[in-house]
């Protein structure tokens, strides 16, 4: 999969180049408001109006034998994209509290997701829902299928959401901050569950998060986003051990690490994110960059700095 998007007059996302291979987990990291979620939603063709995809391509190849489609070119209300949503590309949201309809039982809602895409009887769909609940590690799946969302804890609800996302056996799972709203104790379990499901089904996983710990745990490859563009992407170890972009370096310095000397202070990223209406013409990070140069008034493009490790910075161009 490959995308390259620009959206809206406020260019919320501009020039995201990212690819997720089958069976690969890619982490999309960045500060709040940098366009991570919009990137995820545009893959599904679900930008809220007045947002729209101005240009670019989102290439998606579903099952091994099917053709590559450009999702950006599909009618967002059409049948073709609807057949892909949920069945081929599934998404797990940040808020398990509100992503389930309070008036239906959990089992009904998962069965409903199955019924939308598969020609099965209601009873089969229901059985499958129970099976999915069991697979995501919920105890007594039969009983939980008959419960309403408010009767479950946050962690259980997120498991149910994952069960729903996996129920149609998608090839790509987009997890949009799947653990942000959860208790710390539950976060690791949910991440584990997603990682296991991804490995078992040989799914592609796009993990959207602002939590570097989460990507370190989960993703084989990482893309770092800043102000709507991908500034650096590469294998996990390369990003963590030898980050090339000054933004990535600053981001990693701002994370507390066990074992680091107490005297060393955390250094927050200098300055603030510019107004999206007034994005700098050149490198978007230039105003905050400690190593700003003359050339930074021209926008750098993603260049291969090391094999498989790309960065959009003149230091490495």
């Amino acid at each position: 999969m490959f995308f390259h998007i620009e959206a809206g007059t406020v260019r919320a996302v501009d020039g995201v180049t990212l690819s997720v291979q089958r069976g690969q987990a890619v982490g999309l990291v960045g500060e709040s408001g940098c366009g991570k979620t919009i990137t995820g939603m545009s893959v599904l063709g679900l930008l809220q109006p007045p947002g729209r995809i101005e240009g670019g391509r989102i290439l998606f190849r579903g099952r091994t034998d099917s053709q590559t489609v450009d999702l950006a070119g599909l009618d967002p209300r059409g049948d073709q994209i609807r057949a892909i949503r949920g069945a081929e590309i599934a998404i797990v949201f940040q808020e398990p509290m509100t992503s389930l309809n309070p008036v239906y039982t959990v089992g009904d809602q998962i069965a409903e997701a199955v019924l939308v895409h598969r020609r099965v009887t209601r009873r089969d769909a229901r059985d499958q829902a129970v099976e999915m609940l069991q697979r995501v590690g919920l105890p007594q799946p039969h009983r939980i299928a008959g419960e309403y969302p408010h009767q479950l804890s946050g962690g259980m609800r997120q498991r149910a959401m994952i069960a729903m996302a996996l129920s149609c056996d998608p090839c790509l799972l987009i997890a949009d901050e799947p653990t942000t709203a959860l208790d710390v104790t539950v976060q690791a379990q949910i991440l584990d569950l997603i990682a296991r499901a991804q490995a078992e089904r040989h799914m592609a996983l796009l993990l959207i998060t602002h939590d570097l710990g989460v990507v370190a745990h989960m993703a084989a490859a990482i893309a770092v986003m800043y102000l709507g563009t991908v500034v650096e992407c590469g294998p996990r170890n390369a990003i963590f051990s030898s980050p090339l972009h000054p933004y990535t370096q600053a981001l990693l310095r701002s994370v507390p690490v066990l074992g680091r000397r107490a005297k060393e202070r955390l250094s927050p990223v200098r300055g603030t994110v510019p107004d999206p209406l007034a994005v700098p013409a050149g490198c978007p990070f230039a105003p905050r960059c400690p190593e700003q140069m003359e050339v930074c008034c021209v926008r750098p493009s993603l260049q291969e700095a090391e094999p498989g490790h790309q960065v959009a910075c003149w230091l490495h161009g």
Partner: protein
Amino acid sequence: MSAAQAPRLDPATLSRARVAQTDGPSDEERLLAAEEARIGQWRQVWRRFRRSRLGMTGLAILVVLYGAVVFAEFLAPYHYTTSFTEYVHAPPQRLHLGGAGLGLRPYVYDLTRGYAAQGLLRVYSPDTAKPIAIHFLVPGEPYRLWGLIPARRHLFGSPDGPVALLGFDRMGRDLLSRTIYGARISMTIGLVGVVLSIVLGAVLGTVSGYYGGTIDHLIQRFIELLASFPSIPLWMALAAALPPEWSSVKVYFGITVILSVLGWGGLARQLRGIVLAYREQDFVMAARCAGASDWHIISRHLVPGCTSHILVIATLSVPGMILGETALSFLGLGIRAPMTSWGVLLEEAQHIRVLTQYPWLVLPAVPVLLAVLGFNFVGDALRDAADPHGR
């Protein structure tokens, strides 16, 4: 990655410690929750509803009134067209208990007619020499219950003479019987009308709220247009347009349609507001992400989410319909004789002369009052009980 590049950060140190299963509430809480789940949504609503005293009072009133609707033929001592020509405009007979050699059986006195004011006024006085014993489950005028089952037993009545606990009207018909039969029209016209306006209001309100934009704008302006017409002249115009040769049943449905066509606007408005709130909910987005169509989202998420609201709005708008029918019939534009409704009965009490001389003719206003109060009580209690987020 070569060993020479000393890792600045090791991914393993960043990853989180795994914690043992401490997921969710305790076992007891889970059991309680499971218990509630088994009970189901509507059982829970009922349980909360039962706690409301006013709501239960309203429900009791409605049960009694609809009981009268269902068993009108049995409950009414006479048919609504049966007239006693000797008893025109006779007042209610007082109910007596004990004495007159009848043991504990209740009885009324027969009325004898006299004239006053040089024969210009009929006056009735109880004839204590002629007690009429009231019998229960007494055979009387034959009827067909629900037009099917032939029967002749009435709840009460007397083989000895006419019994009219609410008095007689200008054609000597028993007002109680007519009020009971009138409930049939008045109490059902509200329900049928509300069902029609709910269909209209729910569809247009949901569509308006869900799609927004131009569609929303058009529908809302149309509702405003409807609401800005003064309602009584509009009713009158529409009612006058019903062909006079129509049968009473057709007129009945015609009136229902008029009332609901003019009444759906408010309902559509309220539903639009609710749908607007629901549309922004994450589960709607989640459904869209799962590939659900617009129709699927409307029918499976938005409308069921609004069911409790619809039910409440419906309950609260039945009184409006009942009053509308009463008003129309009161103006002589609604139900026509020989059918009867509370409005038709009240029409007879229009003139001040009638009111001063035969005040009992206003009694059909009492069931109107009760019905309106009953529906309002039930609607209020239901609103408190049915909110799915109320817990």
